[in-house]
């Protein structure tokens, strides 16, 4: 399944206070959280992001707090996937559990720039620029986690498992 996406490029160590500052966490409404997504690093992100955009970043994306609202904010802002050199472990777990693909790529952050239009294929693990001139390899999601992602997250996954 291929989709077209616009890239938002960020650097290393994007922390959860950048993704959703703590002062907004007393309101759990996903739309409220989405309206402040990435505010700590780019105050214009929330108003400019479009459904289906992807975030590309360096190492240790999502470091810091365990706040699941970081994933909720990105997902409800329309981000379809985060592609980074590496992820902080709780962010990674939360993203799988809430059905937001977090994909490891050692080169995407070097190959692509903010505003690039890319073709993203999460089944064949490929990402390339629209004209095909630039490509990045994506690491496959571990099988166990892919099942959770395919179900749309941990809750729908467990619901079907508990039924059977």
């Amino acid at each position, binding site marked *: 399944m291929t989709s077209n996406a616009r890239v938002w490029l960020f650097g290393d160590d994007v922390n959860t206070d950048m993704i959703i500052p703590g002062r907004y966490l*007393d309101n759990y409404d996903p739309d409220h959280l989405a309206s402040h997504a990435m505010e700590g690093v780019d105050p214009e992100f929330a108003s400019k992001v479009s459904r289906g955009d992807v975030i590309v970043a360096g190492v240790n994306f999502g470091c810091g707090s365990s706040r699941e609202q970081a994933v909720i904010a990105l997902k409800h802002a329309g981000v379809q996937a985060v592609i980074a050199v590496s992820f902080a472990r709780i962010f990674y777990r939360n993203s799988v559990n809430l059905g937001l693909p977090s994909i490891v790529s050692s080169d995407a952050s070097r190959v692509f720039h903010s505003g690039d239009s890319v073709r993203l294929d999460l089944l064949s693990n490929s990402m390339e620029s629209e004209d095909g001139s630039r490509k990045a390899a994506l690491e496959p999601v571990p099988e166990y986690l892919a099942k959770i992602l395919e179900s749309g997250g941990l809750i729908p996954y467990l619901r079907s498992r*508990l039924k059977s």
Partner: protein
Amino acid sequence: MAGRTFAEKILARASGVPSVRAGEVVEARPDLVFSHENTFLVNKSFSELGVGKLWDPDKIVIILDHRTPANNAQTAAVHSKIREIVKTYGIKRFYDSGEGICHQLIVEDRLASPGQLILGADSHTLTAGAIGAFATGIGATEMAGIWATGSIWLKVPETVQITLTGHLGKESYAKDVALHLLKKYGPSGADYKSVEFTGSALLELSISSRMVLCNMATEMGAKTAIVPADATTSSWFQETDLPTGDSVKSDHDAKIADKFQVVLDDVPPLVSGPHKIEDVRSVEEASGIHIDQAFVGTCTNGRLEDLMAVSRVLKGRKVAPGRRLIVAPASRRIMIDAIEMGAIRNIVASGGTVLPPGCGPCLGAHEGVLGPGEVCISSSNRNFRGRMGSQDSEIYLASPATVAASAVKGCIADPREMLSNDL
């Protein structure tokens, strides 16, 4: 065949299999789980599962600490909802607003014990590793999964061994050791790893100091951090039959992925920041930097030994004009002890403000939020831009003694200099 690491032993037991190796994914059953205000989110996901009944209410602990007392009507409603949840589900271990910080209470009330698998819906859950538990942070939705099924997937981590030798110098503390490690190995220095502290210096480190080390391993990306249970642990529990043997320790021939060494004599008082935890320099290099606020507290450094260090620095001195010193004990017990030992009196008499037990201003929710252009020196664990308020504010991290010395001087200051004037 190589022996087993602590992580491999605990996760094998918790997943009911004879043995596991680093890299394997297991379905483990935790001994204890906890969540704070995010219990609201846990419950939301749990309700969507339609299970109705908790797996085991006796293994679930709920603590209100992040915004206590409530900072606004929304939080008050969340707190009310959580009170209703614990009643509905029969969760007996519920700590309401004002009891203290989750990571402190789990250890202080002896809910955590050596060799347990503890999962908390908070990144600093690693703190309980100080008494020899495998403790790690998870998200709210997967906590809901545990509420329903009693199990969770975990990858068995590789192990990093950090050997601590030598002795801490004057006004150097466990916090300085943690900052030293961050400077040397960075915010991904222990990514996904199980950190095991070892070495002769542990003999001189209290449970409180060990909690600082385990707590701050979070900032190096660690999955868990432990100080294997020893005589200090047993005496702290006032028990002689605690598991301190091979079942809760790595084998001597276990596979260790990385080995770090720190000679404590080489660690001076340090300061981290602003904005990046790994941006660490000596207090001499940082001294003179203007501050507006000094904060002592949190799951990192809000314990009795921290408050006593602050009290010692403040005795007979005043907080500098135009500066604010804010102190939040990590629990009610600590606050009572600090009152009885005179620390709270000294802090208040010196011009400090004492908050109720809880997370305080650490995460920028209330009780000392920073305005544009303001600078705070804090005993907490994160100095990310904007964490404590305005995006244009700055946070430096240091030990409670350095924070207190800075409050007195009005700028970052070396506690050794201040105390050397005392006779």
